[in-house]
């Protein structure tokens, strides 16, 4: 039965290639983008290397050093391409020389340490036989951190729309396929592919340099990077529409990107603030829904189901954010403040033990830092817990009068809650109904209808 065994080997090799791709693709694309100066070309070259791996690894086995293998193949393709395009200049010559040196070193290492790749695999490759089966030491994995950082800034460049930044970041840094990203954002695959292609073209057309922005430009650009990561996280966390398995994946991917960024920029308080916020919010993922998928509100969640490891990691990241912020001086940033609020909940062993006065104070700071009606609404909730529903209702009524949150279901939902506490049952019921009509999430609608119904029976 050679057939099934062979196809099994192919399947196993394919999964191994995908795993290597996830670990290596960001760095690979970053390194290629530095060499080529073009993110689109870098990604194509990386894809070519991936295809070569998918073709050859099932037969030759996964090389001892898969990252170096992919890099060498991709760089070789770059040289070939430049040769064909007659744009063969110093750049290609330098890269070809680099490859020759690497090959010579690798051949020595391969001769000393193990079998060379099979002849079939070697000759299938364009150019000279590949001999990068070195010992799995970590020398080749040594930092090209700056390149990864540049890649993040390019993928989140302001010439791109927010949608395009999200798509490109997940594509280039997450190693997710266009199909996976499309599924996660509930759009057709073709739409997502177009979005990614257009994004790469826009970067090339705008002549976006492959660099970390200048000092003056840095804070604004970092804000954009953090916003993209948090957007990805929230898309997974809030499940504003659809009901797909990829969504928790988005949370994890955003968290991973955040952790990567935290190591690339260890002194930026807001990076640690965002990571802290995402770690603490992730700790509640398992407690946010019932067995049948109904949402459970924060204060009603079974806290024994919160992931204490992630809470501890979140608190540590928050402490790091606060240390960086104090070292730098100035006020706390909005992610740090939101993480501090999340931490108040995370530290409370029971809902009753929540430090609402502290949370209200943090929302005060947040409202000053990033004034917005949503923050104001949350401040109202915190105030109602700290000082009673009457004080909070004044704030909420002001928001209603302002009319800026007219289509936001949480405004009538919060108002309903306050009215219920104040014993104004009929008004509360009407507000729950209004909130139910506004939400786009089926489960939430059912929850709000239930609350309205339960008041109707009184």
């Amino acid at each position, binding site marked *: 039965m050679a057939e099934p065994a062979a196809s099994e080997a192919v399947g196993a090799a394919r*999964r*191994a290639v*995908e*795993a*290597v791709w*996830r*670990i290596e693709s960001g760095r690979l694309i970053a390194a290629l983008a530095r060499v080529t100066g073009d993110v689109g070309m870098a990604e194509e070259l990386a894809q070519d290397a991936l295809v070569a791996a998918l073709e050859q690894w099932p037969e030759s086995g996964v090389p001892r050093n*898969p990252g170096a293998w992919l890099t060498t193949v991709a760089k070789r393709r770059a040289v070939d391409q430049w040769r064909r395009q007659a744009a063969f200049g110093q750049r290609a010559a330098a890269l070809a020389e680099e490859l020759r040196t690497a090959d010579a070193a690798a051949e020595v290492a391969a001769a000393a340490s193990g079998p060379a790749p099979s002849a079939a695999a070697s000759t299938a490759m364009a150019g000279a036989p590949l001999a990068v089966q070195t010992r*799995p*030491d*970590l020398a080749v*994995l040594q*930092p090209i*951190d700056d390149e990864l950082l540049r890649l993040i800034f390019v993928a989140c460049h302001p010439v791109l729309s927010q949608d395009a930044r999200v798509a490109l970041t997940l594509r280039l840094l997450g190693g997710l396929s266009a199909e996976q990203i499309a599924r996660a954002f509930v759009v057709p695959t073709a739409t997502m592919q177009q979005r990614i292609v257009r994004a790469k073209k826009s970067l090339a057309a705008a002549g976006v340099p492959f660099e970390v922005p200048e000092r003056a430009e840095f804070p604004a650009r970092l804000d954009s990077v953090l916003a993209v990561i948090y957007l990805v996280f929230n898309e997974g966390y809030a499940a504003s529409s659809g009901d797909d398995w990829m969504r*928790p*994946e988005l949370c*994890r991917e955003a*968290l*991973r*990107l*955040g*952790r*990567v960024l935290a*190591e*690339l920029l260890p002194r930026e308080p807001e990076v640690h603030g965002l990571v802290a916020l995402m770690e603490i919010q992730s700790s509640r*993922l*398992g*407690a946010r829904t019932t*067995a*049948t*998928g109904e949402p459970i509100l924060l204060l009603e969640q*079974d806290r*024994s*189901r*919160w*992931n204490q*490891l992630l809470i501890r*990691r979140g608190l540590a990241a928050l402490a790091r954010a606060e240390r960086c912020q104090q070292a730098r001086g100035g006020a706390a940033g909005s992610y740090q403040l939101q993480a501090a609020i999340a931490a108040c909940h995370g530290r409370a062993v029971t809902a009753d033990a929540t430090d609402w006065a502290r949370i209200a104070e943090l929302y005060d700071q947040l409202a000053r830092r990033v004034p917005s009606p949503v923050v104001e609404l949350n401040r109202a909730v915190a105030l109602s817990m700290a000082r009673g529903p009457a004080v909070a209702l004044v704030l909420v009524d002001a928001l209603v009068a302002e009319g800026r949150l007219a289509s936001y279901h949480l405004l009538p939902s919060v108002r309903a809650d306050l009215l219920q506490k104040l014993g104004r049952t009929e008004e509360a019921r009407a507000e729950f109904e209004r909130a139910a009509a506004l939400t786009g999430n089926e489960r939430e609608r059912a929850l709000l209808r239930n609350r309205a119904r339960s008041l109707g029976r009184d």
Partner: protein
Amino acid sequence: MKFMMLLQSDESNSVTNGPEEEMLNAMGRYNEELIKAGVMLAGEGLHPTSEGVRLTYDGEDRTVVDGPFTESKELLAGYWLIDVASKEEAIEWAKRIPIPEGQVEVRQVFALEEFDQSNEYVQKEKVWREETGASRTA
């Protein structure tokens, strides 16, 4: 998905026998890679079994035996807890652990979401976990 990489080794070799500087540096670089890839949740080495004890349970009886334990190759010397997308990715990371000898076991950590939530016995198990305080990994 969370995976544990369990580093097993007998105590006569350099993996477990107190970290030599070279090993310490190699492990340090490896851990740095895990951290920079955003996948490392936790990881520690364990002191030799000569400083440990082993408990045996039999009904109400507990027997405590001092180390060292004499089995070879199956002693836990350390662990990593990593957060990755697939078993293959966990294996790929495990391949990169810079140890000259020993054995690493890769085991997935159960998450509550993995169970069929509508199953009556899963619900019972959940209640049991609540009651017994067994570890939860939501």
